[in-house]
């Protein structure tokens, strides 16, 4: 049974059709990349998967881990192991990063039937993960994402992913706004999480990120449809030819 199965997905935002029939199957342990030009529907797909309000599914179905994903509320999906690394992580004044992460982790642990971590256990656990991403205690103590640089926000997303240990992680343009050093750092954080029971969906505009997070499959999204699928070489081909060569083409 695939971990994620999308069939004929259509979705609208403010009544405007954005996704026009997406089919995608992701097996456990696979890394898929979705590439596409601006406005192709990449972020919409991510938000539909995460269950954001205002993104209306008009047709199609999504099965996740054997369940009907569209029946689940956003927080249920998160507790069931679906994680979205945001393109624009949200600032929440006054809420320390650790406070937030502890609340999230214990919500998810509760769902898995695990006991909540106490403050000491939690801090030890987070510090281990934070060290690898070069996240200092000070960053953890500060208000969530408030006043963080673009790179700090993305590293913080990677940290949350590492701590919450999702089954299915969706990375929405994680490379945007990152310089090369930050990109490498985040990518190595993500790669450390690759596991036989964990799938990744990497959404990106550029091939650059895929040099560091190497996908098993690459899909090209245009006008709300997957127009071409292939292996990692497709990304290289795309880089050479540009989106123009694929947009308007039929799905392979």
């Amino acid at each position, binding site marked *: 049974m695939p971990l994620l199965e999308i069939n004929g997905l259509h979705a609208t935002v403010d009544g405007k059709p954005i996704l026009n029939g997406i089919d995608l199957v992701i097996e456990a342990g696979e890394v898929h990349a979705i590439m596409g030009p601006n406005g192709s529907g990449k972020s919409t797909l991510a938000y539909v998967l995460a269950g954001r*309000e205002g993104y209306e599914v008009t047709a199609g179905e999504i099965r996740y881990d054997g369940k009907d994903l569209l029946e689940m509320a956003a*927080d249920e999906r*998160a507790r069931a192991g679906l994680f979205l690394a945001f393109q624009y992580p*949200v600032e929440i004044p*006054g*809420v320390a990063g650790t406070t937030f992460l502890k609340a999230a982790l214990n919500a998810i642990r509760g769902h898995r039937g695990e006991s909540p971590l106490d403050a000491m256990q939690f801090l030890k656990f987070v510090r281990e993960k934070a060290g690898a991403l070069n996240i200092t205690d000070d960053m953890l103590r500060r208000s969530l994402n408030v006043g963080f640089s673009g790179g700090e926000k993305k590293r913080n997303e990677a940290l949350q992913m590492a701590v919450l240990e999702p089954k299915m992680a969706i990375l929405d343009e994680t490379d945007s706004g990152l310089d090369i050093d930050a990109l490498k750092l985040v990518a190595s954080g993500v790669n450390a999480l690759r596991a036989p029971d964990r799938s990744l969906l990497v959404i990106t505009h550029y091939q650059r990120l895929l040099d560091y997070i190497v996908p098993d499959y690459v899909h090209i999204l245009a006008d709300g449809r997957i127009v071409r699928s292939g292996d990692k070489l497709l990304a290289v081909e795309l880089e050479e030819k540009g989106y123009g060569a694929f947009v308007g083409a039929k799905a392979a």
Partner: protein
Amino acid sequence: MAVTSETLAQVKSVTEDGYKHGFVTDIEMERTAKGLSEDTVRFISARKNEPEWLLEWRLKAYRHWLTMPEPQWAKVSFPPIDYQDSYYFAAPKSDSDKPKSLDEVDPKLLETYAKLGIPLLEQEMLAGVAVDAVFDSVSVATTYKKKLGEMGIIFCSFSEAVQEHPELVRQYLGSVVPYADNKHATLNSAVFTDGSFVYIPKGVRCPMELSTYFRINAENTGQFERTLIIADAGSYVSYLEGCTAPQRDEHQLHAAVVELIALDDAEIKYSTVQNWYPGDEEGRGGIYNFVTKRGACRGRNSKIAWTQVETGSAITWKYPSCLLIGDNSVGEFYSVAITANRQQADTGTKMIHIGRNTTSTIISKGIAAGRADQTYRGQVKIMASAEGARNFTQCDSLLIGDQCGAHTVPYIETHNPTARVEHEATTSRISDDQLFYCMQRGLSAEEAVSVIVNGFCKEVMRTLPMEFAVEAQKLIGISLEGSVG
């Protein structure tokens, strides 16, 4: 319908027990007749065996009260209060009238206690269960009292202070909130039943947080409570009032008065968590909390800090204030007020700068949800004498839902050019982005609101004593349950 009749109809009759400690009296009756008259005032005073001067003071207040109109300026609405349809003195219920065990207590209440993580023993106390737990707390309190007594600290009921320390009571009672101050405070002056009295001697730092929580006669003083705290030169005290657990009280009208006096170099920190019954979803039957709290920084370098977390009551009307008289004195006001359903709150502070180089800080966080209304009302007054005075005010309001209202009404009056007064206020709501982000990390909508609101209130919450802060955080979440759909 008159506001107090339905709740007061439940008041049970005479008890055989009376006060568990304090004074003995040969007056047989344990309750006044219904209604308010000079006789009621005389009865209360006699029942408490008070000296003549205190009776006279009460009577002066009563006579003045008759001439006073109801305060109209607050942005709250409620039917007129029928003062004659109320009992003004009733001894506590006897054990036989109390629930025998937690099994007899409203399960909804117990559910909330559990969410707050309140130990069983304390749950029984809070729910008014007639068990030995009360006596345990007596012994605990007695132990503390002995320790405090060795340091010269007086911490007792107001009634006890009248008997044991009449000179202190006479010197300070009404010196900060005069008997004619406002309609509610004047009523309190006439008919107050009990409350707390604290005196910290010169140079003494009170070694523990003083709390009404373990005070043994806290029972049934809720309606017209009178608190007087005096911090003598160079002393320090932190006082906690109320608790996070929903408190039940059969009186609907609460008109408490708190007076604080800080002498040279003294500091008083007064923290309140108010969670009186807010009424049902339509606001029926909730407490009217009309409180006058005022502190006088009389001495040089003295400091008074008010922190309040107000989540309960159908109507909250309170403005903990500071009179900054001594040079270099400091006043602080930190407030979180949450109103949900039909709750109304009109709360804020007054900072009156009189001395030179006096400083005040006001941080107010208001959260309105459901169909609630909330107003921050605050006055900063810089008198001509307040050379070099400073004030900073930050008032933020958060709206949850489109049926509620949040209002900010500051009065800033400056009579001295060397003073610097700054006021900022914002009104906003929890953004959809913030909610979705939290939910994507696995938090339920209610948990998400709780996390975001606690973040919004952080500057205030961190001024609470540690033991209070954790419970207060949970309380914020619980108060907003059902506010997001």
